[in-house]
């Protein structure tokens, strides 16, 4: 079974899904990611799905589940690079990915996490 690599960049974990995920792979990714978040103490998870052309309700739920898991572990999940066709499909399926933040591309996703951190840094000292 193919495993999706999880990359660490600073305190952000980046997952780039380049293959058509099967159900088994999705479950493995969820476990791997949870382990990686705990191990690295990451505060952000970015899932890049720019190479994903086909989604179904299962993948949609996977994204929501990963977001929930990460939130429990105090890391924010950002889904980046969703293709227009994929977005339309998800909307037609009635999935809004509640609780998952999105960004147009990886760069903007990282910027989003940094923005949040800056806001936090300002708030903490007082």
């Amino acid at each position, binding site marked *: 079974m193919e495993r999706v690599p999880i990359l660490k960049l600073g305190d952000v974990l980046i997952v780039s899904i380049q293959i058509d995920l099967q159900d088994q792979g999705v479950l493995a990714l969820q476990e791997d990611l949870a382990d990686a978040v705990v191990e690295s103490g990451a505060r952000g998870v970015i899932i890049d799905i720019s190479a994903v052309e086909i989604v179904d309700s299962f993948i949609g739920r996977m994204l929501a589940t990963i977001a929930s898991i990460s939130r429990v572990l105090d890391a924010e999940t950002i*889904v*980046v690079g*969703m*293709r*227009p*066709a*994929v*977005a*339309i499909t*998800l*909307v*037609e399926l009635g999935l*809004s*990915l509640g609780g998952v*933040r*999105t*960004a*147009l*591309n990886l760069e*903007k*996703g990282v910027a989003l996490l940094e923005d949040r951190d800056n806001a936090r840094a300002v708030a903490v000292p007082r």
Partner: protein
Amino acid sequence: MTVHGDADRLRIETLLREQEERILKRWLDIAGAAAGGRADHGVLGGRMREIYQAMLRSLSEGDDSTDLRGLLAELSRIQAREGFTPSDTAVLVLSVKEAVYETIEASEETAALRGYIWFSKFVDDLALYTFETYVTAREKIITDQSEQLLELSTPVVKLWEGILAVPLVGTLDSARTQVVMEKLLQALVETGSEHAVIDITGVPAVDTQVAQHLLKTVAAARLMGAECVVSGIRPQIAHTIVTLGIEFGDIVTKSSLSDALAHALRQSGVQLTQGASKRVVVATERA
């Protein structure tokens, strides 16, 4: 078909072949008279000869009439281009019956006369076919045009760095909204814009379906990481929306495009200040 019928059919085929020149000449005369001198006799004659020969081939070879149909389709197309109505073309094809009938009457054969009934049906089919071709061609033109209209009427324009606008004009239906949605989302990806303004000033009416489409577009844009503002909501439309009980949820709505632009600029951290010399000074908050 009975053996008897087959014999009749064979007889009329032979007759058509033997009297080819005579029938053709007569056919051209009748068709020319019906067209009222609008047709070019030389060209039309050549075309009719081709059709006649294809008809003979089709009759003797049985069911395979691809050749004949191709010629008829071409005839129908050319006639239409030259300004003839589809009825003119059908009459032209049908007039071969008259020419053939005259020949049969002259030959005074009962067998051929019985075969004529069958031949008449055959020609009727051909005439109907020219009509069908005409309608199909027309329909194709109409679909092409509505497709072009669809593309023309949905531009995505860039208002500012990172801010797109879609001015919608005309009635929104499912097909159009689909195109708008796809174009907008595609443009968001291509330009890397995080804000989009959907301006519905030019939309005459908003019903639940249109609202549903708008909501879907906004939701899809959100999934991709872009925020949409709906602007250009006129008082009557605001009234309709409330009366219909449509919930826009947390989607930002503005009454005018300029308000929406101001909102999008604020969201993307651009500050506008009016200078003393009344020049608008633009500064970006983020480094």
